[in-house]
């Protein structure tokens, strides 16, 4: 390990010395092979020692080892095979792993699931273009999933609060009928709000239905500043209004 490091450094210093001696123009003969070796060496060194990018480093090292073993660029062209593709795939793997750890930590299950899908599909990709298409498709799907992963209007307790105020407030008998009518309007508003969200979400995901189970998912639950009892009661009441 130490020897290889010494080798890289000495190679780098020699290369730098060459550059320093030569004005940067095409009137001097350029050793393209050495210049490309230097380039791939730098790419590899960028990732060295970074655990987050261990796959990328390994792929870059493989690529550097290939060019470093060549005596001509033509030889490199023959030997390179899919090494460049493997670097791209390794980079996608490393970045998706970084994202996955982050989303698992904050329990963003939808985004974490997208990372897992991408990670599962990277290896079967044969070309970079296939890889790009796959990542784009998954991100497109993720956008739809993020949009449809909603518990609105449940998250807004205003409807149920108003209903409770119209129905439960102690008021003189003369106003009872009027307040009962307000309560009915509120029920209609609740039904309309849930129907509207279903209509809107069906634009993104045909067949989408409001899910009461979703409310208890950590991602949504942590944003409702109420006790479990309050949530359970409000859930039950909403289901009753919606006849669900």
């Amino acid at each position, binding site marked *: 390990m130490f020897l290889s490091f010494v080798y890289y450094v000495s190679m780098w210093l020699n290369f730098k010395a060459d550059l320093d001696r030569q004005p940067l123009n095409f009137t001097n003969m350029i050793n393209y092979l050495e210049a490309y070796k230097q380039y791939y060496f730098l790419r590899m060194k960028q990732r060295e020692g970074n655990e987050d990018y261990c796959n990328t480093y390994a792929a870059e090292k493989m690529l550097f080892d290939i060019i470093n073993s060549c005596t001509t660029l033509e030889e490199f062209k023959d030997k390179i095979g899919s090494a460049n593709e493997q670097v791209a795939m390794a980079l996608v793997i490393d970045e998706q792993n970084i994202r996955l750890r982050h989303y698992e930590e904050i329990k963003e299950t939808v985004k974490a699931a997208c990372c897992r899908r991408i990670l599962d599909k990277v290896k079967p990709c044969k070309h970079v273009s296939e890889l790009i298409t796959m990542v784009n498709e998954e991100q497109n799907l993720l*956008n739809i999933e993020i949009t449809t992963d909603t518990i609105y209007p449940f998250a807004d307790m205003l409807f149920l609060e108003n209903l409770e105020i119209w129905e439960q407030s102690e008021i003189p008998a003369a106003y009872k009928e009027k307040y009962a009518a307000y309560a009915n309007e509120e029920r209609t508003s609740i039904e309309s709000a849930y129907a509207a969200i279903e209509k809107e979400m069906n634009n993104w995901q045909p067949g989408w239905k409001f899910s009461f189970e979703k409310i208890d998912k950590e991602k949504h639950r942590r944003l409702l500043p109420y006790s479990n009892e309050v949530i359970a009661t409000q859930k039950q009441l909403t289901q009753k209004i919606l006849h669900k």
Partner: protein
Amino acid sequence: MPVDKMIVDAMLGTFRNMLQECRDKNLSGGDLDIMASTLARMEHLGIEMDDTGAYSGMLVQEGLFMKFSDHYSKVLSAAAQQSGSGNSGVYDEAADKQLLQNTLQAYRDAVQRIKENKSQVKEKMGNHAADADVLFKDKIIIDAIEQLIVLGESGVSYPLFLSQLIEKGLDKALEGSVTTGESLQYLLDAAKATSANPYLIKKEEEKLVLQKKHAAESSINVADSLQFQLGCEKIEWTHEPDIIKWNKIKQGWEKTLFWLDEWITAYCSFAPFIEPWAATKEPKEAVKESQDCVPGKLRTWEKINNRYFGLSAKELFLHPSFAWDVEHHWMYWSQEYAEFLVNEVLPACIPFQQPAANLIAVAEKMHTDNRKINPNIHQPSLRYATFFNSYFGEGEFAKRYGETKKVISNAAAWASVNF
């Protein structure tokens, strides 16, 4: 009826330009055909559908944006490969120059596109076009790209050019320049000027600290874009529940104050002649309803908040959100009136009961003496104007939104909260 043309144009404009750009360069092939048919599908849906929400949903569902961009990349990549392989297949000086030129041309096109986009934004902003120079930090990204172009034009070979991108960190500068310390400072200053709640300020402070930390770790003072993006998501994630709870408790005391004011004012002799009652069909009946029903509604509201947060109506006012709003001049009511409502009217506001005559007398006097409203209620607007002018020019806030008028109130300014 088709989707509004303006909306379709805004959504598809970039894609039309991209297709035209390829045609102008005489590019062709299967990928270009797919680009054209994908755009045609997007245009067709715009004519066939009538709801904007459904239209954008369908574009995403069918993956049309993604499909178009995917094939656009393939068209460009094929064109680049073609122009780079116009030699014998041997990598020589000519091939090297060609590769470098292709790369530099792509950067030049990118600069052009950024400038064009900004010009379009400026056109849309009309009289406020100069704002775009404050809000869009395109100079930073253009400078970074132009550095690359200068380097590429200096006579270096392609591999040396690529090596220097890495050595000088110019590749990272391109990635990271979208989020600059300057734009984060703008957001922090805006949050402080607004001072809606402490978490919104804290969030922006933390993002700026994060950006500085990551930038300091980099040799070229640019934060790693992925690390920074995820770090910002975590900051948002951390504070979101606190913001929601803060706002909900604030809603609790705001509504309580609103009803206390409605109830006690409804007993004042002038009630039928002032809003909200004067605006109703039967002001006297409306006044009577406020007198009769507000206490019941208030106590139900108290029950709701007690169930949510274990706080009585009075305890809601001890939450830091109340002191925050007082300190930052968001409180609509004056201190003496708010104290009167909370300390004296609230205990009396009970279903089927009426306030004592002395309470009504105090409320009437405060109203006629014009002492109910916070004399500093205009301060948030002044505070925001100071921030706005510091970015967009002295006097700009007043020019656009009018002068901030000081409220006419004979009440003393808030000193402290005494509940």
